[in-house]
């Protein structure tokens, strides 16, 4: 991507999980790092997430899930994005993601898996280096 354009990131909380502290802190850290950040708020269904991606055309989507629903929600979001021919957006998930679930999620095209204790600068760096466009 051109160096002049700001990276645009969508931070989402899919599912019913209300633990939004991490998502909000990350949204602010990315904004402080110069990115354009949209935070969807909580209670997003997979369709909500995909619709916002279509409307906002972000470079990256960050899903924050701490409830254990990642294996159900993430693949569904990826499938729905594929149906809309969206394949140039980085989709990352963080929160509480057990190691043993990572290969399954990776297979569906998800990246990231940052958990509690991750430094914000590491997340900023991760977004910058994993963009697909």
């Amino acid at each position: 991507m051109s160096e002049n354009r700001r990276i645009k990131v969508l931070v989402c909380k899919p599912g019913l999980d209300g633990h939004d502290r991490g998502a909000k802190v990350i949204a602010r850290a990315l904004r402080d790092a110069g990115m354009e950040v949209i935070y969807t708020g909580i209670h997003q269904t997979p369709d909500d997430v995909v619709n916002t991606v279509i409307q906002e055309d972000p470079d990256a989507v960050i899903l924050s899930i701490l409830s254990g629903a990642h294996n159900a929600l993430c693949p569904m979001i990826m499938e729905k994005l594929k149906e809309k021919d969206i394949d140039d957006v980085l989709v990352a998930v963080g929160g509480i993601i057990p190691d043993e679930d990572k290969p399954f999620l990776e297979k569906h095209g998800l990246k990231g898996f940052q958990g509690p204790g991750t430094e914000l600068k590491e997340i900023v760096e991760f977004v910058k280096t994993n963009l697909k466009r």
Partner: protein
Amino acid sequence: MRQFAGFGTAAQTNERYKFLLEHGQTGLSVAFSLHTIYGYEADNEYALGEVGKEGVSIDTLKDMETLFDSIDLSKISTSMTINAPAAILLAMYIVTAEKQGHSPDLLRGTIQNDILKEYIAQKSWIFPPEESMRLIIDTIEYCTQHVPQWYTVSISGYHIREAGSTAVQELAFTLADGFAYVEAAMERGLNVDDFAPRLSFFFNAHNNFFEELCKYRAARRIWAKRMKNKYGAKKPESLRLRFHTQTAGVSLTAQEPENNIVRVTLQGLAAVLGGTQSLHTNSFDEALCLPTEKAVKIALRTQQIIANESGVADTVDPLAGSYYVESLTNRMEEEAEAYFFKIEELGGVIPAIKANFFQKEIANASYKYQQEIEKNERIVVGVNDFQLREACSTPLLKIDDQVSKVQIDLLNKIRKNRDNEMVKAKLEKLKIAAQGSENLMPYIMDTVREYASIGEIISTLKEVFGTYDEDSIF
């Protein structure tokens, strides 16, 4: 000693409860599945992937009967962490006890039922604030008359703190919520001394030892003063602030999880020295998953060691008179008073929620906290200092994805076998009552008895009350 537990189906959690009771636990504390917390049935679109993951899945009275199977509800006390649909779960509990042959006046326990902190921090609201307040005052009024040993609202700072507030914000926002419930109940026409003794509090126990124990001392002082001077309470029990404490989940680290056992011990100790009436000590693996049986046992043993071996529970307020403890308590009280003034200026708690006042305060505090960690101004052992580079593995509790299927099958069976005409009639009566101003508890109990699901009851109320959305600020 009361450890929070619930996962999977009601039958699975019933097994865990029996295990805890056999190991000396004296009360039960129910964690509900997210779909139950939001009032959706297990087969709702929103329940996808959530059934039984964070707590026990309850759809109908049948699940509640299974949850307490072979547990005598007249002998134990039960705390239920439920807010927006609290009236429904309480109704299910009362009817379950009724079926065991116990009258409501024998029942002891707590429903969290604190909706204000949901708008402020935890986010599991359903209806708009005013309608939610009505349901809460309905439960307070109903219990005052029929379930006199029940704690009707557990006014909670825990979630405010977990969402990122400071200790003073936790103290101030929680007490402000408490005063809002007192005022609303008095507006309903209830006598303050009739309901105030059944209000309780729920605080967090975080890392800073003295700040935490002074927070509890300040809370007791503020509550007693206001109840007496502002609300005219006369009974000593109305002035007493009773509280449950849980150690700070957010302080647990995924790195070197065994270190959490030590953190929890110190946090629990601060709570006991600060005068807590009941305690939940977190399990060391909770930054990774729901706790395993081994971790749950260590957490319970931690409390038992504090209570029975250390001697700290032998004296009331043992740190009173220490220059540091007294001056810190005074300072926290003053800072809380400054917040009460601000909230009043905004027009009270509900207008302050709608103006995003609390949400902004908490978001700012949590971002500052994280930045302090990143700049190493705040040390978290094993995370930003003294790190080990070796990988460790902790056995995790996995919730079987079959739970969702099992729960949905159970729900379908209920739908088929109950008297659906009767369910419809009772829901219609509830709807009409909701349009008026009557207490809704008896109507909710009637729907529960017919095995109406929590989803059906909530949908009915949504038709009258509407729903609520917040601005997503960060």
